[in-house]
């Protein structure tokens, strides 16, 4: 006889109270990053030079602005998921773990917002 409720059986979530969302998100962002980072490296190396004018003109173009924003957003998401696992594995104390995760999450959101805003500012600014 099982004492688990029918709802609990259907959700199948166990004591972690979490499904496979984290695992999947890590794989989906990883797959997206294969494409986005490959594009970024090739695009960067294809620029005539890495001076202000060349880079700003590149970021100003719609396609690169959108892909760069997606790159920053996906990188931040993937990084947050990865660092979270490291913190969960190695930080034993519950209090320090929660505090570390708060800081990690805040920093990631801040980096994402700064990165996307910077790209959009160049994209919507005057052509260089």
């Amino acid at each position: 006889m099982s004492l688990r409720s029918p709802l609990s059986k259907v959700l199948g979530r166990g004591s972690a109270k979490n499904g496979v969302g984290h695992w999947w998100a890590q794989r989906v962002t990883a797959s997206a990053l294969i494409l986005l980072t490959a594009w970024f490296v090739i695009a960067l190396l294809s620029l005539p030079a890495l001076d202000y004018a060349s880079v700003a003109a590149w970021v100003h173009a719609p396609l690169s602005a959108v892909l760069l924003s997606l790159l920053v957003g996906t990188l931040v998401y993937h990084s947050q998921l990865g660092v979270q696992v490291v913190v969960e594995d190695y930080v034993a104390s519950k209090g320090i773990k929660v505090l570390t995760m708060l800081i990690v999450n805040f920093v990631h959101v801040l980096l994402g917002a700064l990165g996307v805003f910077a790209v959009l500012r160049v994209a919507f600014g005057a052509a260089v």
Partner: protein
Amino acid sequence: MAKRERPLSPFMHYRWQYTNTLSILHRLTGLFLAFGLIALVYWLVALAGGPEQYADAAAVLSSPLGNLALVAWSLSFFYHFLNGIRHLFWDAGHGFELKVARQTGWATFIGAIVLTAIFWTVLAVQMGGAA
């Protein structure tokens, strides 16, 4: 009666192999790359700030310490990139055979070094040999 050998926890007797080194490296490079995000965002924010701020950031990034960090980040990136693809194939249930796993392990390790070398060579040519 002879004392029976008690089972040991895996980490007490697993032989150290390059395959587990590669696995640990995936996590280490990932964590290191998280700090690289700060550099990427710093570069983008400087770009948005205009030519002078960009020149300042470029000077920081092309200083000896900046260059060292960028080389380390690029090597970490290419390793994490290639090994990540290896992990995705494992997630799909492929490449677990010992021979295949070892071959892809070596390919990842050597591939990361080769890609980093190509990346910096192209970058040096792009910057007119001034990199």
